[in-house]
């Protein structure tokens, strides 16, 4: 037979996928009517893409993720009409999730020896990260300055503390050695400069943020303002990596959000006391009055984030074996099913009825649930999965929205259905076309290298 009859395979380079990431950084919000509000947040699919690419490309994805970081720091928004706006940018929490997803899928082929990278003081300094996160979530608006009608600048104290803790914990000699070995080689000079540039950008973005409304609805942003979406992501990562017991994470979550209420309550009580002149009795009366009128701390409890955090933990437990082994057969079906359904019930029945939509984080959680369904039950999962999620949402609406104060948006189902199917579809593909961790590392990077 003639040799030219054979089929030639070709493989796209890592960077050809970056164009797709740029496309995924767009989000469109379109309010067709008071009820029908469509939002296409394509960045939700970025963790899916990085996980998929990591399973295929392995360690080669490092540069890709670095470049992704550069996009994360900047954001652009344009309000074309009152009902239509377009934005470009990747939220910080999506980037964190994308990085860790990629890491999970590369891990069997590449191990980063973290203990060598940190000083001994890291053992106690790491507990400060919890405080840093607390501040990043709840005190994000405390240091915000509006310099003009179109420009504001802010510093998130939580992120500053995070940088300080990391700076004090890293063994800089080991880190610089690793950088020199990996990036300061002559053939990697450009890559090295770019990587360092991205790291500097990320640090700057964490240290301060600004937003500038340029003109005609166009706005430009730099840096990370808040860590709102980060709590469910961290809860998920802790649960899925089995770093902490999931029950402990749930308790920590409750404590985390309750502490904010407690701190606010105490702060207000002291404020009320100090305003009540010097007489203790007057101060106590002021506190009683505040409690009686219901104005003290009642609206501070972040119920939505707590529910989303709990859902994230339950989903993390459900998918943990797959996260560890990248092998769908390692999932214990009954346990996975139980935690999956629990997660969906908590998400749809636990959300307060004043929320008009489940938000980007909620959509990501829906996506995660759909991914698990597609992964395990394949074709049945991608047919019944999105339908099940929609039905549960609808049921949640019917159960929860029966009074005049309910502003639930049944058309959120359009967004939910779209995201659920896409994630479920890729779950199915992960099952069918999985790359076994035993596939050799194409980059030639030795294992156990820091």
């Amino acid at each position, binding site marked *: *037979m*003639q040799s030219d*009859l*054979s*089929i030639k*395979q*070709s493989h*796209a380079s890592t960077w050809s996928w970056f164009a*797709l990431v740029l496309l995924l950084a767009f989000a469109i919000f379109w309010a067709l009517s008071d*009820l*029908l509000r469509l939002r296409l947040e394509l960045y939700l699919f970025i963790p899916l893409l990085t996980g*998929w690419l990591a399973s295929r490309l392995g360690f080669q994805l490092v540069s890709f993720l670095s470049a992704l970081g550069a996009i994360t720091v900047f954001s652009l928004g344009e309000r074309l009409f009152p009902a239509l706006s377009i934005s470009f940018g990747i939220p910080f929490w999506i980037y964190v999730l994308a990085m860790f997803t990629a890491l999970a899928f590369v891990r069997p082929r590449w191990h980063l020896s973290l203990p060598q990278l940190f000083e001994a003081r890291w053992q106690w300094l790491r507990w400060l990260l919890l405080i840093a996160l607390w501040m990043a979530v709840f005190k994000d608006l405390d240091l915000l300055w509006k310099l003009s009608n179109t420009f504001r600048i802010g510093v998130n104290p939580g992120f500053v503390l995070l940088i300080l803790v990391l700076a004090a914990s890293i063994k800089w000699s080991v880190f610089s050695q690793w950088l020199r070995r990996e990036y300061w080689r002559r053939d990697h000079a450009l890559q090295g400069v770019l990587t360092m540039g991205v790291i500097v950008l990320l640090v700057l973005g964490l240290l301060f943020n600004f937003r500038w409304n340029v003109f005609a609805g166009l706005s430009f942003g730099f840096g990370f303002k808040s860590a709102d979406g980060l709590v469910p992501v961290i809860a998920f990562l802790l649960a899925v990596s089995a770093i902490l017991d999931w029950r402990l994470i749930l308790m920590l979550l409750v404590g985390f959000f309750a502490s904010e209420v407690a701190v606010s309550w105490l702060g207000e009580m002291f404020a009320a006391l100090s305003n009540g002149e010097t007489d203790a009795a007057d101060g106590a009366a002021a506190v009683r009055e505040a409690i009686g009128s219901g104005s003290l701390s009642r609206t501070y409890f972040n119920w939505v984030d707590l529910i989303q955090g709990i859902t994230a933990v339950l989903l993390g437990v459900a998918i943990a074996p797959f996260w560890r082994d990248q092998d769908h057969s390692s999932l214990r*079906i009954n346990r996975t*099913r139980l935690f999956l*359904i629990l997660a969906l019930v908590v998400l749809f029945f636990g959300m307060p009825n004043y929320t008009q939509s489940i938000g980007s984080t909620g959509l990501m959680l829906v996506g995660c649930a759909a991914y698990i*369904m597609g992964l*395990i*039950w394949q*074709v*049945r*999962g*991608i*047919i*019944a*999965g*999105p*339908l*099940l999620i*929609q*039905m*549960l949402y*609808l*049921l949640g*609406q*019917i*159960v929860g*929205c*029966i009074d005049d104060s*309910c502003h*639930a*948006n*049944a*058309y*959120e*189902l*359009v*967004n*939910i*259905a*779209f*995201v*659920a*199917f*896409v994630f479920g*579809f*890729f779950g*199915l*593909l992960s099952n*069918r*076309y999985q790359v076994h961790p035993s596939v050799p590392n194409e980059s030639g990077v030795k294992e156990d290298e820091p």
Partner: protein
Amino acid sequence: MIIDISALAKMVRRMDVSATLKSFVVVFAVMFVLANLVNIMNFLMNFLQSGLFGDIDSGGFVIAWVVTAIIAAFGPLAFIVWDWMARQPWHHLAAISGALIGGIGFAAVGFCLGAFGANVVVELDTVFSFDWFFLFVVIGLVVVALIGWMSSESQQVRRFMGWELIVVAALGLGGFLYVVSLSKMEDPESAWVDYVGLAATVILLVVVVWLVARSVRHRIVLSGDRPRELLVGSIRHKRFWARLAFLAGLPSSLWHARAMLTPAFWAFLLARPLVYAGVLLLLDRIDIGFNIGVTIVLGMGAIVGGHVLFYYAKRMAASYIWNPSQQSDPRPPILFLRSFEDDQLRFKRPGWDLVGHWFDLWSFRRNADEAMIDEIAQYGPVVALGMPGETRIPFGALRYYSKHEDWQRIVTDTAKRAQAIVIGAGSTPGVMWEYELLAREQLLDRTLLLFPPAAADSGAGISALAAFAEATQSELPHDAQESGHLIALLATDTGPTLLTAQKPGTAAYVAAMRAHFQQVTAAQLADPLVL
């Protein structure tokens, strides 16, 4: 090595059906483009003559409009781009497009549910009322059924839950239709046409759902690393002309410009539009100025005429004779050997499967002989010895009617210079001699052994395999008997590979031919593809 290609065959069949259906419309694409261009030119001429151009402030806008219209006019040719994309090994693109198509489909479902939910949430103002309970129970039942159908490992539970879902869906759809019908009945201006329109909408909805599901399933398969051309068929010389000819449903023996000089080419090309036009006439989509009776007669006539023309196109294409002494085609031939007992290796299909027979007719899948002309004649002339005493040359390989004393010499000479040999398995003396020839001349690595489809159910396949193994001194796979129906034996990267299938359908043989001519590896053939 034994590989079950049932799933692959299923996919090949689906792709074949899609290609056949597309071929009925594709021929019109060029005409659509020309008509569009003529319309644009007409508009432009009228516009310029009207003198309005000078009144418009923004001439750039008009130019932009014309350029956009011209680009859009070429839209019907987009199917060429689509086919080109389908042939690239871009499995990620298939994954993304599959996710998008399904996502949009489910978003539409979400919109319908949302419309329902929005009304219900507004209407429900009392907790624990009858309506509230009713809805809670119905949706709760659907939730339970979905969980059961999706996640139960028991087949019986899944079946039960599946039926429950079907009943709820049917009741829901029925209820919706009932409500719509009621509103139409209350409207005094409603006519029977409105009800027909409603029924057509439901049918259209079902078709759209089917198309979306089919499209997503295809993309799941295309997301894998399996060679695309194994699924959709190859185009060896990827020129514009060959691509167009493939899409128009012409057999690969006519994928060259010289084919336009043959009457068979034009007959093949015109047969499909004739059938298509007949269908449009019957659907009353073309107004020819006659009454309904004449229109129906003309429509039926066009459909029958199209089929007759296609049949005669095959007859015309079969009129060319192979002359082994004159090598008019410089390409090495593809030699087709078989027992004259089953001269064309007929594919089995039950008589009641009229749709299947129809597709076989239009996609050249009635027998292996036809299928080779459609699939592999592009690599070189497919030649064979004609059956002695045959008066009507069948559509298939080019025949040469040799004298009895010459046939072995002609087969030997042709086999030596052939790029590939396709042989119908058997155990007749003639076929046994051919086996020995292949072994003696060391031609087995370029040989594709096809097990006759007609004998697939009996033990004839196994005895033919045993005869082949004996004549060529090859080793017989141990568990060949328990491996389903034998389809083909070919050489892959892992050595002799026996292809089997649960059903000896047409597509399994087509897949075997493609695998042989595209030199597909055993791993690619064995890639799981169950949907």
